[in-house]
């Protein structure tokens, strides 16, 4: 249960040490290297003209005025790209989307033309001077209306397409679940909408595309979380114009936050590449914040109907969820290919539910295509929100304490590995321990007493719980692939003659601190100090192939590959040590950093001595060098979990929800760097609070984006964000090489229902049963007014 004592010294800095981050010295000095910092000789700039309409015919694009702007060299339209058959591109979900349109625009802020100029101001002037004649078409904003008979069919480019349904997906046993609902003592049902939100990483998206006409090599510096996959996609999409995979180099330099928003291929990247290939000069494209919020991939937008069946005593018997997923005009989600609704079937949550059924329908509307995660593993946040919200509804219906109801229904510790009704094998868990710890830390019983007293005085205070289970680390190759490429990840480790090492990985940090934590994994396995392990990622010319960083997969997959590669190195080191010490391998014992002879600990060789010997005195018949590669295919996903408790006070004058305290108990298995894990949880909690209280991208009936800048899209500041309190339980993953599970997204997944449950709890005695997020002061104030308690 408690965290294990580190096996290595702080100087070595293996697992469990809060060593300071290796990436910080450059960031602290302003010496990071982000995409917009890159300036190449002769580099041109690109800006994009965008559609003011959500749905319109393009009657004419006039580029004449734009071409007259001083500094403008070229204007690229859909017609330009059509010559190269590059005006459409495939999405990761085997749908198609436009790079630039030839005849129609499908959402507001869609790319219409790109202007290439000698500097960014000239490019912006040029984009403003592009004249487009539109003929507005009927706009489909509401996904329910999109499915009604007679709704305009949006994807007329698809032969034979007669409606706006993209796909239907379901999981579980419909008949058995219906039977359980018929036999239930009590059934609760709620309509839950999780609105569109945007990751809004502080760095927007962009690239510098650099095509060398002499060598035929294309180098693209770009804001991508998955550089290798991007390289292959580019080769597949643009193979017919001569781009060949060995001549494509994708470099993902320092990335200013990703959160899922830097997984997709956006049209801007493709246009910049096309421009560089055609012009033969480097082309930089960096979107501004409004373009980022209005055109890049969104997250969520799930309209869910959740139902829970139970016995009178509170034993849950079945869950059923029906969902409409608004994907915009193209399914450009970033999910594993076989999972159109991601891992939504984790929606049985932390509970021992024998019956479950869920179904999701994907729908086209006139909105930007998507969706991506928002710091979560493929639709897990939506699933957790549904089950944790409906669980509280059941508690309210049965007049049971929500903590007691959860305790009664948790999957018991001894049932792990647990087979869920929707087909997952949960690897490990101890849910009651996490909830109990959270209750003890926050003083749950005392808070309930305080709430009774406050209510008697008319004050509004609520306590909300969320006991979530995540599913991360995609994933086992049997089920998980992206466009056919299996979702393994990789490490290539080389130990130098002086005992220092370089390790390269197929993932890409966007702030997670891989340069530090991966070095700690190598330090743990080999005893080489983390300070002596150089970690590199993000350059496809040097790093081994991997699927990238998202869905909390880095530590479960690439981290595992690092440990296994180090163990392969250790196996060879053992042979060398046996040779140096003139003993049999069987006579050697390993402790961090050295092999010694059993019974004669003074006879030992350090990893550094062995590394030198690998190049200077290796056994005859053995290859020189000390290195290994591992492509790790995880046997299962990992299932981090936690229990969060939130206390809110509501201002009866303004409707403002104030988070008084928030205790987060997380269990992510064994921890590499506690300091970094806590930092990830703080950030995740804040990105969980954000959609719960502040953030939403909505559209008016004409499809106009109502939150297209930071004026209206409310990213939390330090003022709204509380001082988060964190704690851990430790239940190692039984199948991961060092028992880790992944942690970066747990808090984003777990926090929203804790906050909503707290607000509903504060208002429950007034008859409030549910609130959709974001719970804005206006929304709360209207309820207070209606109930006659507004001050």
């Amino acid at each position, binding site marked *: 249960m408690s965290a294990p004592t580190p096996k290595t010294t702080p100087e070595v800095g293996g697992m469990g040490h809060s060593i*300071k*981050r290796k*990436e*910080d*010295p*450059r*960031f*602290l*000095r*302003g*010496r*990071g290297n*982000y995409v*917009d*910092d890159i*300036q190449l000789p002769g580099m041109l700039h690109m800006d994009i003209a965008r559609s003011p309409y959500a749905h319109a015919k393009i009657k004419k694009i006039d580029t004449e005025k734009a071409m007259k702007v001083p500094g403008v060299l070229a204007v690229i339209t859909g017609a330009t790209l059509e010559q190269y058959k590059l005006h459409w591109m495939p999405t990761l979900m085997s749908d198609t989307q436009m790079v630039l349109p030839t005849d129609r625009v499908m959402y507001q802020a869609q790319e219409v033309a790109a202007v290439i100029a000698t500097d*960014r*101001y000239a490019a912006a002037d040029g984009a403003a001077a592009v004249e487009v004649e539109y003929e507005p078409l009927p706009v489909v904003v509401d996904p329910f209306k999109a499915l009604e008979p007679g709704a305009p069919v949006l994807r007329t480019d698809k032969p034979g397409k007669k409606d706006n349904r993209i796909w239907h997906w379901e999981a579980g046993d419909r008949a058995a679940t219906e039977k359980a609902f018929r036999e239930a003592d009590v059934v609760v049902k709620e309509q839950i909408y999780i609105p569109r939100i945007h*990751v*809004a*990483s*502080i*760095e*927007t998206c962009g690239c510098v595309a650099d095509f060398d006409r002499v060598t035929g090599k294309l180098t693209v510096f770009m804001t991508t979380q998955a550089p290798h996959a991007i390289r292959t996609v580019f080769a597949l999409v643009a193979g017919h114009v001569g781009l060949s995979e060995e001549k494509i180099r994708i470099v993902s330099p*320092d*990335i*200013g*936050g990703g*959160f899922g928003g830097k997984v997709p291929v956006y049209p801007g990247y493709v246009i910049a590449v096309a421009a560089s290939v055609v012009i033969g000069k480097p082309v930089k494209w960096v979107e*501004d*914040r*409004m373009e980022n919020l209005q055109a890049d991939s969104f997250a969520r937008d799930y309209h869910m109907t959740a139902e829970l069946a139970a016995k009178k005593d509170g034993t849950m018997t079945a869950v059923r969820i029906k969902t409409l997923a608004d994907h915009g005009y193209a399914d450009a989600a970033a999910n594993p290919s076989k999972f159109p609704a991601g891992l939504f079937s984790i929606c049985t949550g932390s509970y021992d539910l024998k019956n479950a059924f869920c179904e999701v329908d994907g729908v086209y509307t006139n909105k930007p295509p998507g969706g991506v995660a928002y710091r979560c593993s493929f639709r897990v946040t939506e699933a957790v929100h549904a089950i944790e919200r409906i669980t509280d509804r059941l508690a309210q219906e049965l007049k049971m304490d929500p903590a007691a109801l959860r305790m009664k229904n948790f999957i018991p510790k001894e049932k792990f590995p647990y087979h869920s009704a929707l087909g997952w094998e949960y690897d490990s868990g101890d849910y009651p321990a996490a909830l109990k710890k959270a209750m003890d830390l926050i003083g749950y019983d005392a808070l309930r007493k305080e709430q009774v007293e406050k209510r008697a005085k008319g004050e509004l205070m609520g306590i909300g719980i969320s006991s979530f289970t995540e599913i991360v680390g995609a994933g086992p190759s049997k089920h998980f692939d992206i466009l056919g490429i299996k979702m393994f990840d990789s490490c290539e480790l080389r130990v130098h003659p002086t005992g220092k090492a370089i390790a390269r990985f197929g993932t890409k940090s*966007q*702030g*997670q*601190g891989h340069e530090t934590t991966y070095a700690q994994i190598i330090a743990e396995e080999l005893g080489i100090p983390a300070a002596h392990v150089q970690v590199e990622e993000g350059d496809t010319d040097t790093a081994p192939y991997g699927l990238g960083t998202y869905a909390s997969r880095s530590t479960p997959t690439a981290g595992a590959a690092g440990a296994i590669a180090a163990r392969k190195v250790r196996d060879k080191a053992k042979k060398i040590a046996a040779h140096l010490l003139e003993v049999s391998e069987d006579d050697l014992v390993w402790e961090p950093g050295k092999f010694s002879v059993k019974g004669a600990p003074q006879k030992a060789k350090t990893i550094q001595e062995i590394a030198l010997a690998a190049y200077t005195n290796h056994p005859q018949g053995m290859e020189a060098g000390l290195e290994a590669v591992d492509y790790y295919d995880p046997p299962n996903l990992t299932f981090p979990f936690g229990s969060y408790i939130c206390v809110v006070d509501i201002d009866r004058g303004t409707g403002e929800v104030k988070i008084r305290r928030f205790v987060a108990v997380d269990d992510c298995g064994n921890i590499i760097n506690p*300091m*970094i894990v*806590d*930092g*990830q949880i*703080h*950030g*995740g*909690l*804040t*990105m969980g609070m954000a959609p719960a209280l502040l953030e939403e991208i909505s559209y008016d009936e004409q499809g106009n984006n109502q939150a297209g*800048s*930071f*004026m209206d899209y409310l*990213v939390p*500041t*330090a*003022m709204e*964000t509380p*001082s*988060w309190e964190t704690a851990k339980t430790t239940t190692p993953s039984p199948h991961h090489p060092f028992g880790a599970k992944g942690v970066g997204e747990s808090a984003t997944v777990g926090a929203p229902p804790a906050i909503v449950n707290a607000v509903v709890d504060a208002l429950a005695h007034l008859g409030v049963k549910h609130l959709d997020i974001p719970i804005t002061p206006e929304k709360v104030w209207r309820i207070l007014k209606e109930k006659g308690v507004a001050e």
Partner: protein
Amino acid sequence: MAMHRIRVKVNGAAHESEVESRLLLVHYLREMLRLTGTHIGCDTTHCGACTVLLDGRPVKSCTVLAVQADGRDVMTVEGLEKDGKLDPIQEGFFQEHGLQCGYCTPGMMMTSHALLQRNPNPSEGEIRQAISGNLCRCTGYVNIVKSVQHAAAAARSRS
């Protein structure tokens, strides 16, 4: 486009440049002087990634024109370290894990540096208020507050 000759002192070094009227200070710093530590995160003066000190006061350099800096002192993140020694605010962010992706960090440190210049012993509330114009998406601000407190304590013990 009219051009202007401006004289700006940046991190103690004098610069004389020809700039367009509309050139933003952030582009002047990043593209003409190649001081790329100052970042751009929005277009509406909300995110604070581009914060620099203009005559000692934090400004968002995406909404200041380069010509407005004529005859004035600009300090950027590159000017914090002195004689190979990190400024207490940099040391605070390092020790307290006040940064993750590093993108908001320069602006966040410049704002915090200015706060500590005028208030060497700020409360948590004063720190949160001071940095409320700087958005961070990674850290949840908890460790940023601690970083500023760390820097304040270090500066106090030094003086």
